[in-house]
């Protein structure tokens, strides 16, 4: 299958956006997942609802809110532009931000579940063997969270590849800058002679999705084996 220049561009941009969005979600996702699994605090249900809202909202809603906040006239956008010369709107960095926000709940959910599955007595045993809470976290909790974190990362990456609504609302559909795979498919379906291009990109999307899920499965099995869990 020979891809044209714009198709390669969309593919590369999607991978770039996916990788950055995944990295952006990593630490906050693990932190929020751990917080939700282990701590009780004031307004926890409201905090959790807020974190998971991007999963149930129409993606255009966070997209529009991002535009209002991070746009050139938005409060945060103006501040970032004036102080750091950083702009999110209508460029690939905005696509990363939109993808990360939409996919963030997947990372939080995976991290939360992985913490909930850890037997707390393992951590207690480690603390009675002289490990400080900090050391227990890094030598027991984090390694045992690994399968969940891996699954979360791959889910975030896959979701980022498929992100459409928030991206097009926030950063538009600019070839070579913000036109990721789903946006390129959308554009192709609106071109008179775009059917072949759309089909090629659809095949690539299908392959990406399949291999991402396959990789997620293989890696999580390996990680489970590494931490000594048996799975049927």
């Amino acid at each position, binding site marked *: 299958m020979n891809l044209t220049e714009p198709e390669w561009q969309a593919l590369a941009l999607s991978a770039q956006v996916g990788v950055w969005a995944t990295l952006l979600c990593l630490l906050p996702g693990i932190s929020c997942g751990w917080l939700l699994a282990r701590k009780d605090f004031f307004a926890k249900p409201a905090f959790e609802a807020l974190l998971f809202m991007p999963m149930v909202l129409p993606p255009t809603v966070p997209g529009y809110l991002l535009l209002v906040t991070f746009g050139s006239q938005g409060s945060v956008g103006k501040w970032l532009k004036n102080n750091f010369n950083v702009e999110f709107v209508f460029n690939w960095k905005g696509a990363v931000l939109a993808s990360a926000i939409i996919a963030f709940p997947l990372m939080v959910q995976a991290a939360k579940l992985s913490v909930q599955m850890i*037997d707390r*007595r*393992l951590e*207690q*045993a*480690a*603390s*009675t*063997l*002289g*490990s*400080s*809470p900090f*050391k*227990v976290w890094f*030598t*027991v909790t984090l*390694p*045992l969270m690994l399968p969940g974190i891996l699954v979360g990362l791959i889910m975030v990456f896959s979701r980022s590849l498929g992100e459409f609504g928030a991206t097009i609302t926030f950063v538009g559909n600019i070839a070579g800058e913000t036109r990721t795979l789903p946006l390129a498919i959308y554009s192709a379906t609106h071109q008179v002679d775009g059917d072949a291009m759309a089909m090629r990109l659809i095949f690539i999307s299908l392959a990406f999705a399949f291999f991402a899920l396959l990789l997620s499965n293989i890696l999580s099995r390996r990680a489970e084996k*590494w*931490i*000594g*869990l*048996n799975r049927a």
Partner: protein
Amino acid sequence: MLNLDFTFQRDNFCLHICTKIDAPITGISGPSGSGKSTLLAVIAGLLKPQCGHIALNNRTLLSQHSVDKTNAFIPPHKRKVGLVFQDGQLLPHLSVRNNLLYGYRNISEEQRHFSLREIVELFEIDHLLERKINTLSGGEKQRVALGRAVLYSPELLLLDEPISALDERLKHQILPFFLRIKSECKIPMIYVTHSPNEIEFLTDTRLIMNNGQLIANES
């Protein structure tokens, strides 16, 4: 010597203990829900009583008094009190060797009373060192858990029904190892069990608990 005088309250359950423990092996028995495991968790520092005083070998582990507002609490990782759970709680992502060395690496050379070699020979686990935890039998896991706890050179070893999950054959294999800890390692132990046989075989002093209180102290 362990001095206990504290009250721990959670929901409708109240654990109130006032006693001194200085036997090489002290057995604690009592019906389920009487507070045996809670007592061990309090001594280990995993639970914090609302008030009272706990001292181990004249070192204050807890001093919590509402009247004069004194407040001292030594966290579990600074207590030098080992705890072995019913199912060992070995770290599944580490090999047997690294489980054994987990606590050992947390203490200084001067604090180490035993070497890995000594412990491996004492508990007969040499052939298991490179194995993953999920490949061990129940008896092997408990021997590794005991070895790990002893290698940490604790001042006191708490054993929470350490062999109750094993079958009779394995129990008889493991029991002599506790006597070895007593005679060779000289670490005082508090041994929680439901089994009169284990109490009879191992312990020098027996405490009986019911409904959060000690109701008998037999030597």
